[in-house]
């Protein structure tokens, strides 16, 4: 490829990124507004949730005062615009349910979720590649049949079920690993502690996500075995190993990249369930609480965050795809 073509290609990728980012703005606005409207339509009342137990017997005047202070009875468009104005200026507001600035709530918990999700995702990819390749390589053999069967079984198993099963076996019966939290009770926060407490949640997350990748890699490899360049390589007498790893795998990996983006929503959902089962102090519990307490500020911030992650994931996948395969068009 000439440098001129490369430069043109680079510019096209840049345009794609800009176009996608421009498109992301209305999507974020739409999603966050829909969230406000949904929350408004929910049967939960933020002021009553804020009082919790103490709502029983609270004097009507005091309750009305807080309602007034927060402006929860104002029209949803007005509330949304007020939130948006502050959010654009970088002020995410205070979480009503946790009596803490939203940025602090997210700052406290997000790193733990990112840690869990990134290792879990990496591990799922690795498992997908290794087992998927092994299965395709030995297509029809006992290894392939085992891997495929297990993958289908795990695909069907709910994440929380896997989590509880792992908890029962490794924490309660075998006592190999701690059953939840970030550290042992009373232990200080340290690398060793966090690593041992990460093992179960990360493994469960990876195992729940991996089957999809395994099956995908296997399928794609099998398809590429029948393609001309692979058949050609075989007919040239190259070793089986060279053919599979050097020729077939390389081409079949391309669609894999897009999957990274597409699987992100699944991954986030899986992480929420894993966090709940293992009392992992990530963003999951805060998300559930925010929804149940109709905590507009926290919900708004979390939704925008999750939507951005998905949009960015998709964009990243497309860019990688474009960079890896010159034939890919950049109009989308």
């Amino acid at each position, binding site marked *: 490829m000439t440098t001129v073509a490369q430069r043109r290609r680079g510019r096209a990728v840049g345009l794609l990124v800009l176009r996608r980012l421009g498109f992301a703005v209305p999507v974020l606005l739409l999603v966050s507004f829909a969230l406000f409207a949904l929350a408004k339509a929910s049967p939960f009342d933020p002021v009553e949730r804020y009082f919790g137990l103490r709502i029983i017997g609270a004097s009507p005047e*005091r309750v009305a*005062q807080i309602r007034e202070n927060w402006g929860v009875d104002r029209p949803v468009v007005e509330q949304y615009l007020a939130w948006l104005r502050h959010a654009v200026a970088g002020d995410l507001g205070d979480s009503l349910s946790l009596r803490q600035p939203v940025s602090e709530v997210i700052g406290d918990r997000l790193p733990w979720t990112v840690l869990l999700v990134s290792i879990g995702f990496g591990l799922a990819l690795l*498992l997908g590649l290794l087992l998927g390749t092994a299965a395709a390589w030995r297509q029809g053999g006992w290894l392939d049949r085992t891997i495929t069967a297990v993958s289908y079984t795990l695909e069907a198993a709910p994440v929380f079920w896997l989590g509880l099963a*792992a908890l029962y076996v490794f924490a*309660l019966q075998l006592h190999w690993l701690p059953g939840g939290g970030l550290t042992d009770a*009373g232990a200080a926060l340290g690398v060793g502690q966090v690593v041992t407490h990460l093992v179960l949640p990360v493994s469960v997350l990876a195992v729940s996500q991996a089957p999809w990748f395994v099956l995908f890699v296997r399928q794609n490899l099998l398809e590429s075995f029948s393609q001309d360049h692979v058949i050609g390589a075989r007919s040239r007498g190259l070793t089986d190993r060279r053919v599979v790893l050097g020729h077939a795998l390389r081409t079949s990996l391309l669609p894999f990249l897009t999957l990274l983006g597409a699987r992100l929503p699944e991954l986030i959902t899986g992480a929420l369930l894993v966090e709940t*089962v293992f009392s*992992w102090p990530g963003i999951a519990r805060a998300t559930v609480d925010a929804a149940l307490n109709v905590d507009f500020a926290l919900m708004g911030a979390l939704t925008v965050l999750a939507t951005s992650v998905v949009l960015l994931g998709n964009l990243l996948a497309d860019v990688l795809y474009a960079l890896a395969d010159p034939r890919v068009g950049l109009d989308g």
Partner: protein
Amino acid sequence: MHHRPAILLVAAGLVLVGCTSPDEGATADTGQSIVIGAGSEPENLNPILGYAPDGASKVFDGLVARDAQLKLVPALAEELPSASADGLVWTAKLREGTTFSDGTPLSAQDVVFTYESVLDPKSNSTIASRFDAVTDVSAPDDRTVEFRLSHPYAPFDQQLSLGIVPRKAFKGVDVSSAPFNSAPIGTGPYTVAEWRKGDRMTLKANESYWGGAPAVKTVTVVFVADDNARATRMAAGEFDGTVLPPKLAGAYDAKQGYRVVRNPSADYRGLGIPSELPLTSDPKVRVAINLGINRQAMIDTVLAGAGKPAATPISPYLDEWYDQSAVFRHDPAEAARLLDEAGWRAGADGKRSRDGQAARLPILYPAPDVLRKELALATASDIAKLGIDAPVEATTLEVMLQRQRETASIWGGGDPYDPDTASYTLLHSRYAGRSGYVNMTLYRNASVDGALDTGRRSLDPTTRKQAYTDFQKAYVADPGWAFLVFLDHTYVLRDRWNGQAEQVEPHDHGLVHAVWWNLERWTPKS
């Protein structure tokens, strides 16, 4: 084996991550530290916003505290606060030489600041209604606080268990989102060393506590909302104590080294009966419903024995106030007679009606609450046996309130501190038809109103005692609810400490109250 593949793959995952063996959680412990598995996590630790208003807060002290019998004892106040003869001015004198955990000396100005902030509409405090009678709080000198009330309010001293905060910590800070809310400073027996939200909180003993340094030096509170997860982690030996539903706690009854503690409470569950329906507007029908309910059967089956029958909002554990004659026995025959008398007669199919109108009372409960669901079903089946159609419906608290005029609902609440706080807003006709969770059944009874007003305004103990006896008698003759049960709270505790004392508990029993309400006075068993 069904889940063998899963296990194999998990094992593969472990190898890949690089498994290190976990260090044993239980170190050779002398009982100087304790790990508590709590079912609920506080939203904040700020008394102004509503954290632990009834004391036992670990981090703060109020002007007064409570002993095992719930008698008020002086805490930050030198002696119990006293009221002027007209009951309009309450004065508290502060103990000398108390300091906050950061070394700042406690002043009467801090007390004034705390109460003024609660009353400030901008604070959005959830407990402001408790102090509605207060018109002014002032500090004539550094050790004296005066509360001025708009009307005599006998149980006012019961509200003075609210924790006191240092005013210094709130200079130029918005109370709603102050850093103090998660990293508080108090005068109490413990300080907050770390609070990892959603996971755990670590408390350290305050070595210079005015009441003496606690013997249990480190308290780790792990927050696990799910009952089964908490039971699992208790079984794995991770916790020294936890709260469990009665049935799960039963597993520890015979277990060596553990104790099951069943604490009585004033935490009631009751059926609020709408007083304006054609069926239930007649007191005879409401008495009949009360007589038709088999409360003991509910306690035996739904609560595994951990509870007491309820008739009024006053718990039978409150010996000082409870009227033993104010009860409803289980008497379906008498209930049927009363319904007949009220004109609701049974047809051939056993269903009652009057003038062609069928007897019907829908019962609502909040969907996520399993206990209330079981109580709603049991209540409905008892009421159906009387010939009244009682469909059960799951919904939210908000909807229960919206439909308060036409449906019955399973409500919960109650506190053991004073009959006024337990009954006034719930049953006084002043609150009937007001918005919010006050007098949800629109109950109106002049004798009940009169007795509640006398009890609230009189400072004389004999007059108050008589007023609440009158109240209970007037109420059971014309009940606005069918109070069902007072729950016992059950705990599992490693048998390693001395000093636990039984205290009748309010609804709240996470980090505050509960079996560890007096943790600062526990000592390790040698």
